């Protein structure tokens, strides 16, 4: 507060003028994209299986000598396709992100990842046994000769080792023990694993180059996956970072362990970011830059100024308060679906827990509503832990936001209200009697969000009017 930085004062609807429209922004229709993308994924599976059938996969399956090999080929082909789908799921392709949201994509990525990995293991075992059967050799000897003599197979083995590394470090038990940075860097070995698997698919696999159609298909999928990854994970973020030249302008404490970072940049109106969205942030001030931290904007974006608010969790976020003015910042994003575009109702209720207030605070500034139509229910451990109190009070005064502060210790694992406030849904109903006709935005820790969403559902809010997004990794 002593820095002399331009504080963001909530007042009339800000942002880029969106709030100035005469009514709630209608939700962008989800449209056909989710279906179309899901269909494309299913179709790619179909092509892979069809190509296998075309290569006599089915006939071979029922022959004693070729059955194992044929099944091994199928598992390998499906695994290869799933690996590329996995890369695409995490490639931050805008249309895919918009269709599903990053949190869902990350869940699927995990699911698809374990599936493809199991298929790879099955592929290795089946092909080894199948080849051993036709060669009248022991499986171990066959495995060694496969690895050492067949083209590209040593690389494939190395690729498998890389994938084993990635999968084992992603098991929940291992992930809890690893720092995010370590886990993330190890996860990059997945690209190596996928890449090292390619040569054996070309030179030893018969299906990849069996027909012109197969060749075209596989090269297309590879090119799309690699292209999307390079463009959307590297090219676009670097280009945006260079274009908007964000630097730290000021660091301001908000509450115990909570600081706001103000960032200046060029032409931020061209960034296409909305309140409720987040970026991956890399502060080029020291070793921590290898990790992009996902932080939501805590104020509606301005043409020259962004603000994020960070709770120090000891995962690198604790260094935020030591950021110097002028520190350069790289961004990835904007990402996130928790925006005004999700809104369909005139009345809106925000349920915030702890640092989860940040995107909701920005939304309250940007969204359009009449006095009394917006309610913020804000839960924190103690009264001192509420951030933005002055700003929220200003919003209440100027725009008629109803504020409900709920300080108190956590009651139970499946409760969203703090201890001492009675039953969850009763409380919610008491605070907002007509909640069933509201859009409900929820942000906080995962377990808390689940509890709050469940309470909202019990009070009668249809699922499509509950908007939330998970940030945990």
């Amino acid at each position, binding site marked *: 507060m002593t820095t002399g930085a331009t504080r963001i004062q909530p007042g009339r609807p800000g942002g880029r003028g969106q709030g100035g429209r005469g009514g709630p922004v209608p939700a962008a229709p989800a449209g056909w994209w989710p279906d179309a993308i899901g269909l494309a994924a299913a179709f790619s599976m179909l092509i892979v299986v069809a190509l296998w059938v075309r290569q006599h996969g089915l006939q071979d399956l029922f022959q004693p000598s070729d059955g194992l090999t044929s099944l091994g080929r199928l598992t390998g082909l499906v695994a290869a396709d799933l690996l590329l789908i996995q890369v695409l799921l995490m490639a931050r392709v805008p249309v895919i992100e918009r269709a599903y949201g990053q949190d869902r994509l990350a869940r699927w990525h995990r699911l698809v990842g374990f599936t493809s990995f199991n298929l790879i293991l099955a592929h290795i075992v089946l092909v080894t046994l199948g080849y051993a059967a036709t060669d009248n050799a022991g499986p171990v000897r066959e495995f060694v000769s496969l690895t050492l*003599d067949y083209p590209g197979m*040593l690389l494939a083995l*190395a690729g498998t080792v890389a994938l084993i590394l990635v999968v084992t470090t992603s098991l929940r038990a291992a992930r809890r023990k690893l720092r995010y940075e370590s886990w993330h860097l190890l996860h990059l070995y997945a690209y190596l694993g996928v890449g090292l698997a390619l040569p054996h698919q070309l*030179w*030893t696999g*018969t299906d990849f180059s069996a027909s012109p159609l197969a060749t075209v298909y596989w090269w297309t999928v590879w090119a799309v996956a690699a292209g999307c990854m390079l463009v959307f994970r590297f090219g676009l973020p670097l280009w945006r970072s260079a274009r908007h030249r964000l630097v730290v302008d000021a660091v301001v404490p908000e509450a115990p362990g909570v600081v706001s970072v103000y960032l200046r940049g060029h032409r931020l109106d061209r960034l296409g970011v909305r309140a409720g969205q987040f970026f991956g942030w890399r502060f080029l001030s020291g070793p921590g830059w*290898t990790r992009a931290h996902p932080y939501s904007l805590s104020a509606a974006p301005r043409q020259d100024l962004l603000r994020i608010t960070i709770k120090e969790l000891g995962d690198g976020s604790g260094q935020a308060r030591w950021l110097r003015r002028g520190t350069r910042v790289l961004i990835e994003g904007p990402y996130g679906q928790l925006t005004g575009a999700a809104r369909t109702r005139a009345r809106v209720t925000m349920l915030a827990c702890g640092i989860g207030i940040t995107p909701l605070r920005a939304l309250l500034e940007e969204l359009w509503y009449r006095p009394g139509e917006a309610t913020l229910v804000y839960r924190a451990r103690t009264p001192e832990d509420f951030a933005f109190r002055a700003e929220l009070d200003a919003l209440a005064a100027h725009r008629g936001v109803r504020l409900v502060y709920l300080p108190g210790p956590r009651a139970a694992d499946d409760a969203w209200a703090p201890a001492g406030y009675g039953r969850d849904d009763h409380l919610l109903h008491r605070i907002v009697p007509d909640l069933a006709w509201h859009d409900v935005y929820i942000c906080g820790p995962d377990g808390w969000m689940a509890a709050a969403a469940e309470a909202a559902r019990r009070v009668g809010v249809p699922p499509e009017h509950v908007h939330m997004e998970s940030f945990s990794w």
Partner: protein
Amino acid sequence: MRRITMWFTATVVIVVLLFSYRTSLGAGRAPARTSDAGSDAGANAPGIVSGPTANPAPAPGSTQGPGPAPTTGSTSTGSAPTGGSAPTGGAGNTVANGTVAQTRWGPVQVQVTIAGGRITDVKTLQQPNGNFRDQEINSYAVPQLREEVLSAQSANIDTVSGATVTSDGYISSLQAALDAAHFKA
């Protein structure tokens, strides 16, 4: 930061070493196969190549099977196997090419040498070699098939387990060659 550098360096070293392995750049081919199936594979016209009957090889139009037509006149020099060990043209020797049997893994064609009413040699002019697996299988299946033919003195032989496709093609091409040479077991 130090650890990251070391991991990165180690990774680069390992990847470079991996790619310097002989099979890692696609050059890894099966160990040299038997002398047959020279670079002009496909240019061998089916029918008698040389022998007492001295029939020239049939004109391209009359060949059975989908074998590729010879580009030059089907003289014995143009279609003789490149492997030098065959006693071609010797008195009493008949050398005949089989038709090209198209299997799902590729073409198979054999050349049979008959001397004194016995099959004395079978050469494989073409065999599937589209990928390493085919080469690996054929490297043991083809010699085994040849042995079977020499001992059975006919095309009535068992297929080699694990190489059914090549075996079938081998047998059908062999039968065509024996027919062309009017060989009766």
